[in-house]
């Protein structure tokens, strides 16, 4: 049902019991069945009660209000509430202005003295209550701050503990690394000392060896033996001196001009016992100064001071032929 079927005056008349019975019954029904009407009725009732509480009713309305409306305990409670609320608001001008003014910093500051106006009416009791309220608020603020601070400190402590643990781990890790390095360094130092000792020992041995040993030509370990083609009737044998440090004999055997083999072999023969002591592999002839020669080397450890023969065999395919004997003498 729209607002057109009732108005504020009609609602007020209804509340005061001043409507004719049919109209009152219609409003009764609407008060239960129509949401808009029910809301409008409550608004109108509040305004009516406030008007009474503020002394704005007069004449018949005032009389009817007292006679009809105030008959109900529930409605008297509404009046009591309205009176208290009006008194409450009158004692607190900031209360009213807060509701009307738009939000602003000034208003926010006003809100700080929200119930301050009450102090004038119920001064001793409310001053005490407000004192308690302020003290409670101060305690609340202080408590909140302390709680916040406590939480912050706890977080800091936790973080510090984490940092401490991290640093402790790092310290332990570094300590281990240092110990490892120290160990490695110690091993290195020991190794170095050992090497130095060994070097000094070798130096000593070397000095001792140098002191005991006579100077020996570097080429002394190999003795060269150059043998020309054997000539008939030659009486003097070529001689090599094999010293203790001589290990090899490098022989260069000059070939006869008639000899023309692509390869040769050499054998060392003990003529006294007619025993071959050593044989070479296949050797290629070299040409030096228009002469051919072959070169072969053998160890000296089986040589004795006596005469020996180097027998040269020419090889061509599967055929071979002794092309010359080269006698020489060993002395020690």
């Amino acid at each position, binding site marked *: 049902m729209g607002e057109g079927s009732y108005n504020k005056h009609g609602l007020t008349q209804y*509340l005061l019991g001043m409507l004719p019975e049919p109209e009152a019954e219609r409003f009764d029904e609407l008060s*239960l069945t129509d949401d808009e009407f029910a809301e409008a009725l409550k608004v109108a009732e*509040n305004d009516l009660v406030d008007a009474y509480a503020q002394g704005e009713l007069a004449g018949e309305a005032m009389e009817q209000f007292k006679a009809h409306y105030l008959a109900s305990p529930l409605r008297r409670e509404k009046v009591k*509430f309205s009176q208290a609320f009006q008194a409450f608001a009158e004692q607190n001008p900031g209360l*009213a202005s807060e509701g009307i003014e738009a939000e602003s910093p000034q208003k926010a500051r006003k809100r700080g003295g929200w119930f301050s106006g009450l102090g004038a009416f*119920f001064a001793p009791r409310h001053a005490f209550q407000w004192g308690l309220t302020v003290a409670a608020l101060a305690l609340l603020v202080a408590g909140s701050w302390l709680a916040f601070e406590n939480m912050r400190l706890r977080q800091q402590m936790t973080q510090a503990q984490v940092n401490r643990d991290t640093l402790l781990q790092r310290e332990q890790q570094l300590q281990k690394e240092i110990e490892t390095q120290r160990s490695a360094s110690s091993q290195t130092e020991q190794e170095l000392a050992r090497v130095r000792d060994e070097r000094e020992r070798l130096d000593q041995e070397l000095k001792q060896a140098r002191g005991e040993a006579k100077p020996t030509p570097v080429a002394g370990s190999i003795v060269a033996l150059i043998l020309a083609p054997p000539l008939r009737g030659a009486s003097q044998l070529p001689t090599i001196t094999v010293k203790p440090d001589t290990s090899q004999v490098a022989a260069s055997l000059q070939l006869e001009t008639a000899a023309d083999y692509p390869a040769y072999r050499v054998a060392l023969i003990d003529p006294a016992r007619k025993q071959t002591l050593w044989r070479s592999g296949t050797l290629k002839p070299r040409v030096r100064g228009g002469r051919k020669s072959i070169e072969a080397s053998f160890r000296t450890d089986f040589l004795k001071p006596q005469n020996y023969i180097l027998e040269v065999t020419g090889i061509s395919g599967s055929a071979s032929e002794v092309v010359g004997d080269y006698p020489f003498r060993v002395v020690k």
Partner: protein
Amino acid sequence: MSELPLPAPQHKKDWVLTPRALDQLLSWLDEGSDSHGQRYLEMQRRLVSYFDRKNCATPDELADETLNRVARRLEEEGTIESDTPARYCYIVARFVFMEHLRETHKGDAALNEMQKKSPDYSAAAEVDSKEKFLDCLEQCTGKLEPTNRRIITGYYVGKERVKIENRRALAESLGITMNALSIRACRIREKLEACVRQCADSDK
């Protein structure tokens, strides 16, 4: 033709609202939606106000009796044919009211009786409980959300033209119509009144 004997109907006074019957009533009042009991509470409030406006001495009991009868009918019939649940409640409430009038034997006498029972309100009420009311009002107003506190204080403060201007300024500052503002203020006031009443009763 002989009629089958019907079981003796359970006397109305013996009927009690069972949880099942209450569920059925809540569902019926919700008309398919689920208001979580809000429609029931709103109807109960309206019925109390209705009986109170009729100057019944016990509006709460009559409101409960009305809803109980509706619930019993629902339990018996399974459903109720009516334009709306609220309209059926009104019809039942009228019967309950008429019965109440008959029981008291006098129509206006009830009002007179109430008036006799009530002491001189203007003289007595303010002395004892005004201070307590103010205490409770202070507590309950402090519990309101800032916006609701702003509305309730801005809407109901002032007299005559000042009050009207205040309300207009408040509606403008909130960006709502005067009608919407009045409904919002009324609902906040309802809550505030309930809070103050509970606070005052708790100290008794």
